[in-house]
């Protein structure tokens, strides 16, 4: 087996996933090469890049057996149709509730790994496999608190895009935050937040946060909130309703659910998706389902009896994530599937 790896054009958002899989392949000694023009992608036209990629993949002397697309939303159809003798693998990184699992392209993809369990289990597609999101032990790590700048420290941290369900939950804890004089920081994309939202006071960093900085923010927070996105909402439609809602139930977790524990940071995880409680236990992360339970959990873990439990719980979650939920483990799963003889 020898793999040629390429990331999608939206390189920035995929940096950590791309780096995670590249690192996993080298750690596991899986023969691979990265697409040598990867760094030129922003300068060259997309089609030019894909043509070079096609030529490279089919070079006889390179002996590639598989091409590995990370992302894969923008792979042109002609490319998928012309990979003779080379198997195609797509690691879907997009939100599966906003983008369909590329039904028209699926017949030309040999292995499609979705990050939503319900898509793999629906039985509609024979070449679709479930490969959950993950974290990287290389990218995510515990940092000594005294080495962190003050700007990364907080009592409550929310990092991510501000979808309406997240805004509603965060707005509900403002009185609690004010009453106990806690520091709450909101980092990430806030373009969906209305101008009159009281949350603007807490917006600390509205950039697309580079991965190394997210690790610092997680390390500096006493509690990291992981609020899962509402699949009924879609900012790309005129009425902001998701036309794909209900097609596949939301069961799986986001990458943050693995990255936060891998930083040995304490996470409060929304448990409205089944995998939350299937993967983590009550002694590893805190759970909440709605505004009331979120307030109760924050009170317990920040000013109540749970104050002294956070470090131990975070370490237990770290142990679980590091021992089974990293890109190395996902890559082992993928390798096993690729090495299985076709049915």
């Amino acid at each position, binding site marked *: 087996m020898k793999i040629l790896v390429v990331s999608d054009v939206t390189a920035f958002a995929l940096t950590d996933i791309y780096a995670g899989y590249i690192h996993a392949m080298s*750690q596991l000694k899986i023969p691979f090469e990265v697409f040598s023009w990867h760094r030129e992608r922003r300068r060259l036209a997309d089609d030019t890049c894909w043509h070079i990629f096609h030529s490279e993949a089919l070079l006889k002397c390179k002996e590639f057996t598989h091409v590995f697309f990370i992302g894969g939303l923008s792979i042109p159809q002609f490319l998928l149709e012309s990979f003779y003798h080379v198997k195609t693998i797509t690691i879907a990184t997009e939100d599966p509730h906003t983008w369909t699992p590329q039904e028209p392209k699926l017949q030309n993809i040999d292995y499609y790994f979705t990050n939503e369990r319900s898509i793999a289990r629906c039985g509609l597609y024979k070449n679709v496999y479930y490969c959950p999101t993950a974290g990287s032990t*290389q990218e995510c790590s*515990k940092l000594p608190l005294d080495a962190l700048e003050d700007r990364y420290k907080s009592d409550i941290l929310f990092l991510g895009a501000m979808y309406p369900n997240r805004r509603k939950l965060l707005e509900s804890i403002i009185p609690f935050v004010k009453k106990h004089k806690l520091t709450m920081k909101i980092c990430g994309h806030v373009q969906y937040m209305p101008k009159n939202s009281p949350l603007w006071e807490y917006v600390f960093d509205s950039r697309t946060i580079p991965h190394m900085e997210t690790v610092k923010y997680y390390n500096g927070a006493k509690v990291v909130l992981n609020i899962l996105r509402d699949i009924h909402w879609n900012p790309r439609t005129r009425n902001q309703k998701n036309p794909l809602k209900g097609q596949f139930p939301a069961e799986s977790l986001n990458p943050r659910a693995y990255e936060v524990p891998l930083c040995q940071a304490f996470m409060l995880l929304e448990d409205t998706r089944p995998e939350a409680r299937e993967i983590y236990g009550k002694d590893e992360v805190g759970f909440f389902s709605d505004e009331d339970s979120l307030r109760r959990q924050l009170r317990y873990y920040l000013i109540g009896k749970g104050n002294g439990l956070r470090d131990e719980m975070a370490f237990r979650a*770290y142990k679980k994530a*590091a*021992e089974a939920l*990293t890109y*190395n483990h996902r890559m082992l799963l993928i390798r096993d599937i690729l090495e299985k003889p076709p049915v």
Partner: protein
Amino acid sequence: MSQSAGSTTNSDYTGFIAHYDNGRSIKERENFYSSKLKKKCATNWQEIDRTRLVALELVWHGQSKATVQKPPDPFTPDQWFFSHSGCMNMNSRKIIVVSRNIGYVKDGIVHITSVMEDTGIIRIWTRAV
């Protein structure tokens, strides 16, 4: 195989302790004169009898940081793993230990628990043999 964080001991010792099936334990030592090999060695790892090992324990400044226990058989002596990661100080030519690692090998994958020498931070990771 289980890996766990442990308790505090009294000394200021940093290194790993090899626990044997007969209750004995051997502390890892550096700059060690091996009577078996009749020469000065960087560590006493050669003296550790892997066939008798039941657990490896990583201690950092007297504090037990992590333990790897022997699982039920089949488990061969070769499956135990211990190492240092380090670098050389180019002025003094001394080796600086960056992290101490213990672990085990299973299905061609090494499962490693490391303790950072400076900070005592624990890191759990995997790689191919």
